[in-house]
């Protein structure tokens, strides 16, 4: 029961960070992405730098350990190489992100607060994830069996 509890705390802290930094506001995200705009807002870059710096401390602590505190192993990403899936996926994500200024975390946070557009976005996003999972199972499963 400890692992889900830690995950809950982690989720709470993560979303608090999104709220404190203002990243739940799509206009603020878009103001960062609009690098040639008159009202360019570099805040998101600082959020990212700060988040990566603190997360890197966690990575450094983890490097000194064989296992996580509460689990048998570190479950990092399995894929290791830069491939077409990664680049195409990142491009599709960037397109959707740039169109409205929601990425998954802020969209879920705004949806929880009942923002109608965020709810629509979250439902569409979950549908996209579900569609992908269905499609991926159909394409990948025969390949792996072969």
């Amino acid at each position, binding site marked *: 029961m400890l692992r889900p509890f*830690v995950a809950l705390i982690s*989720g709470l802290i993560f979303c608090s960070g999104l709220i404190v930094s203002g990243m739940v506001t799509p206009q603020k995200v878009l103001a960062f992405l609009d690098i040639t705009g008159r*009202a360019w807002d570099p805040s998101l870059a600082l959020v990212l730098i700060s988040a990566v710096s*603190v997360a890197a401390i966690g*990575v450094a602590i983890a490097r000194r350990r064989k296992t996580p505190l509460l689990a048998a192993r570190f479950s990092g990403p399995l894929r290791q190489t830069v491939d077409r*899936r990664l680049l195409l996926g990142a491009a599709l994500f*960037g397109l959707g992100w*740039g169109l409205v200024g929601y990425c998954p975390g802020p969209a879920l946070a705004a949806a929880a607060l009942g923002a109608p557009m*965020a709810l629509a976005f979250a439902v569409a996003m979950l549908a996209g994830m579900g569609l992908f999972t269905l499609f991926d199972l159909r394409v990948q499963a025969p390949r792996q069996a072969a």
Partner: protein
Amino acid sequence: MDNFTPLSAIGGGALIGLSAAILWVANGRVAGISGIVGGLIASLNADFAWRAAFTAGILAAPLLYRAAGGALPDLAPPASLTVVIVAGVLVGIGTRLGSGCTSGHGVCGLARLSPRSLAATGVFLLVAVATVFVSRHIVGV
């Protein structure tokens, strides 16, 4: 740069990093929102409990913030419902195909100096910047 909020950006970013550090050091898991939520849909296995708990934390934090009397930020994107739905589907498919979003690649991956995350973050930032440039300065929405 009237809207620049450096202090809250650094403070909020530190909380996001702390969350990622806790999940990695304690549970050995990557704090990537799209991966955690996507995995919730993909499988009802033993991983379900922690994924659901993390997602519950993401959804509960704004409600607690509001209950505590926090001022509600502007949550509406400057886009039509159609564009919002198209963008949502693109983000859903893209983050699963590309194995991550701003949190998984942008925060956790860069903290691990992962070449895949560096490439993904570069691509989604570039495409997002290009998308905003075209929609705001060329098409002129």
